[in-house]
């Protein structure tokens, strides 16, 4: 189950952060998402990464912490997507698929002419769409 998704802007500022838990660990999820930015920085700036992976948007598992797993994704405009899940076994393909859908939703949201780039995403329809994507995660409807 996905417990949290976030969009993080260029200045590492949160543009969108939504948690999907009933428990009151939302603050903890904020911390987890914030800390995961360190791993993204490390991965993106690491010169050891070979050339073919540079174009890869999916960053993979950023780090496991407590009973969460944090996955990352970097768009071509350097906007970061972060997903936190409690699932023990997450297939790479599932995570990639999730991010692809999430990216599409994000693109639609920021293409709104009333959206100012760099500001928080306040679109309700984006929220609804994200909830749908989150609910469908891991339910086998990959494709």
């Amino acid at each position: 189950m996905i417990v949290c998704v976030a969009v993080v802007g260029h200045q590492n500022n949160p543009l969108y952060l939504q948690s999907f838990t009933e428990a009151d660990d939302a603050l903890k999820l904020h911390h987890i998402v914030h800390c995961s930015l360190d791993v993204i920085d490390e991965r993106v700036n690491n010169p050891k990464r070979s050339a073919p992976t540079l174009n890869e948007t999916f960053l993979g598992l950023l780090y496991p912490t407590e009973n969460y797993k944090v996955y990352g994704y970097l768009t071509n405009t350097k906007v970061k997507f972060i997903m936190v899940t409690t699932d023990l076994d997450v297939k790479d393909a599932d995570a990639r698929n999730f991010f692809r859908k999430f990216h599409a939703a994000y693109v639609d949201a920021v293409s709104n002419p009333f959206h100012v780039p760099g500001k928080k995403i306040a679109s309700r329809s984006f929220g609804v769409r994200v909830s749908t994507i989150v609910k469908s995660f891991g339910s086998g409807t990959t494709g």
Partner: protein
Amino acid sequence: MEDYPEELRTPPVSLVSIVGCPELHPSISAALSSQQPPMNTLALPDFSKASILARSGKARDPLAPPQAPAGILKKDWLLKHRTRVPAAVAALFRADQVSGDPAQWLQACSDLENLKSAIQGKNTKLVVVLVQAQASDELSEDVTVALRKRAEIDSRHMIVLVEQDETEWSRSLSKLKNVFAELCSAFYKEEGRRIKARIEKRNFSSVELSIRYCFKVAVYAEFRRDWPEALKFYEEGVRVLREMIGTSTRLPPTQRLVEIKAVAEQFHFKISTLLLHAGKVVEAILWFRKHIRSYERVVGTPEVAFLHWEWFSRQFLVFGELIETSAATVPDTLSPRFGTADNALTEWEFQPAYYYQLAATYLREKRYAIECSSSVANLTTEASGIPESVMPSVYVGQYVRLFEQGDTVSVLPLSDTEYTSYALSEAERFQDSYEIIALFRKAYESFQSLGATRMASACSRGMAIEYYAAGDFSNAKQLFDGVAGLYRQEGWTTLLWENLGYLRECSRKLNFLKDFISYSLEMAALPLFSGSGEENRENKIKSGPGGSPTISRRENIQQEVINVLKRKQAPDGTNDEFDNAMEETTHLDIDQISPLRMVLTASVAFHDQSVKPGSPLLISVSLLSHLPSPVVVDQLEVQFNQSDCNFVIHSAQEDSPPLDSNLHDQVVEATSLTLFTNKWMRLTREIKSGQSGKLECLSVKATINKHLVICCHAESPASMEDFPLWKFEDHVETLPTKDNVLAFSGQKLIQVEEPDAQVDLVLNSAGSALVGEIFIVPVTILSKGHAVHSGELKINLVDAKGGGLLMSPREAEESESHDVELLGVSTVDGKELKEEVDSIRKIQYSFGVVSVPTLSEGDSWSCKLEIKWHRAKSVMLYVSLGYSLGSTEEEALHRLNVHRSLQIEGQIPLLVTHQLLRPFRREPLLLSEIRSLGGDDKKCSLAMNESNMFIVNARNCTEVPLRLHSMTIEPDDDGKQLCSVQQVSGISNGHAVIAPSEEYKGIFSVNPRASSSNFHLGDICLNWSRDSSLGEDQETHVIMKQRLPEEIKYSLVDSQNFVFSGAHNHAAFILPKSEHTVSHKLVPLGSGSQQLPRITVTSVRYSAALTPSTSAATVFIYPSEPKFNLETSCSTSDECVS
């Protein structure tokens, strides 16, 4: 890791025992422990001690039904095998003990029997060692055979040690070592095989035994250094153990879980150590993941959750320490694509800091669990109390109660309730906070060095929360402050909110009123993170003492600040908080980088860019606050760098008159000064500009509730930065002023111009200056309304054509070669001003500074500039007067300046030309040398020993009459010898006045005495002055240049007034762009204005004729002095371009 027993932490080392000959033990032990692999020695000085090798346990009746084991692992089993159960025993006998005395032989035999019986039933091997003094001390074959038979050993296990001989000793010792190594290996292999057979045959009654056997096999394998086998059986044990959780019923559930976890911990530790020592980091981490995953949910009942968290935290801590001590690095073979299918691991899992951080997190979990358990326990089990004399049992992870009844001490099992209260009371004795802080600090430092600032901040926050929980508020505050900076910078408002909530409470606890207010205000002004409209759910976030981030909570916090401020005013001062800060007014300073800019921002814009002093100007002050509730400002004080301009705006509701407004301030009343959230409060005021210079608005001070003064640094709308945090919010942004232009370009500073100078500076000039004279320019300073203090006159001469410097570049080296030179400034006013001591008087060639005496209103002062022209040049004269209105220091800072400039032409006063008249030619015309080689070609030849007439014309080129004092020819040395010069006609009455454009002629007779192809006649020296002025006589040196006559083409018409010599018609060829001079000698026949003979120049090629105008060919003939030899000559020059 240090908590683990030594035997668990270090790899097992084989144990052998030596009995007898105690004097040799140290050297043998040392030799064995330096062996690779080392062996430990259990040294028994004599055979009577051999009984300790005997089995200590009770002999089990082999027929009795197998008892269910009471635990999984016995605590001392490993220690026993490492210290008390030797793999081999060596009996040491001296050679004389067995060869000589029969009594001794018998003794030796009985010792050997005792030893044999002690190790009976075990696989422990026996070795007999005979110690000889010399290698030559050959023992009889009989003795050795008898001994071997007694000991029932192989001949290989009978070793002779030679004591005295060094080489023999080491040789025999190494033989002993080899034998021991071989026997150890056999022993542990045999033991392992024995137990393994039980596992394979499933020859055990309970699952506990299965685990125990696995452990034993693995340990025996470790003794043999068979790591793969050890690993295999440890892993098998762990697997069985994990399965056991649900099935075992031997102990009450809580204690069972505790025991299983304790055993699992040992197994896991062994596995991790083995893997890490083998360099298999990746496997170790994967194993750890598996271990954690198997046990993370096995919490047990809520009352003992703390036990689980403590255990769980320890797993992370120990693994972190293992990673750290083994200095594990990311293997190169690993794919660099962490976290993907290629490589399931992530970077941080290779960092000990990651484990420390999680260990700290779980230890904190334990602390929470204890708090919960304690409160529950206090309510329910107050009566039952804590069971006494509970102690660890012989089994790993078990606890029992000692029960004493008379002399008998029995061991009783515990019930779960008893155990829980015992464990709780034990756990409560520990101060976990300090351990948590230490762990977080370790992780913090490590992450910081890795450059993971956010993770480090999270650790820092963890420490801070622990300090807060432990009541160490100043440490907590310091740490929280450090973390808040990062969250502010990156705009994580929810995290910042929590942080500020803690900071606020810390300040409250520490009685820091100012901090409390500023943190509270910052919190109240924070933009809330609202997810996509689902505010309600998102805002249920539990955020420490700050409460959940909602608008109502923000409003509450703002109200709290108001209440704190109001209570201060209350006469009885009943509130217990912030009591010692009662008297003061709290000042908050908000600059452009302060996080409190969200609370209050002041934007100040002048409507103009510059203004005259003293004239009114408009200023707009705009204030913006992001506080959720309206803010009522009592008083607004706007401060400038010129304090005279400060003004105060009071809210009309304010009843009491202001007390603290100083006299300079202008006080203005405004109807209402209330700030609404995110709405600019715009105030436009007219103020009087102050002194000249920069007028800058420095700050705006808002007084709120009388005791809170917020001082905002004024910001220009043009250079105003975005609001921190709010810049990411999707909300309408408004402009600080209504005027759009002002909102984008307004400045908080204005230039106040200088006041108009009321002093006149007059430059008089008498027309053009003449080259050579000292030209006087009078300068007059006339005060018309200002007194002049410490005035200073600056004079500057600049080339009017530009170029600045008044000298030609090639002459720059010579200081005297300035074309125009400022010689000095003389103050003439009838009365000579006395020299002031501090008067400035610096005169350079083109620049001068002169101090002006103090002048009161209406006075005037003048001076004269003396300028000399060396060359005809047009010059700009700049004179500027700088003065101040008073002599005080303050007034002296404001200087007024008056500038004047004047262009002065420099003219050549006299144009000097000359002519030579030679006597008539008396010889036949002969070809003469016209051009001399190598000499100056511009020369004429004179008749030798004849009187040649030399006529010098001095023409006044100026517009003023000049007085000519003398005209002489000063021959140089050359000239004196070669010719004599006599003045024929001179200046009568001492001087001659030459009117403008008039000419004066001086006539000299030149009589060459020697023949010379080239000689210099001398200089013409003219001494002249202006006719009207009283200036000194000047000399003009004109160097005579001789030239050759040339032919011209012309036609000349006779004139009745003149007779002239020369041809009427002539033709000449003129080269392009060259000048050709036609000279005729004319003798006027009458005086007055006379028409010269008309000349007509015709270009043959173009048939174009040029006739000069009548006026150009008219000259005025003065009546001649009554002298015979007066002649007038005139030359006409015409140009013709072919």
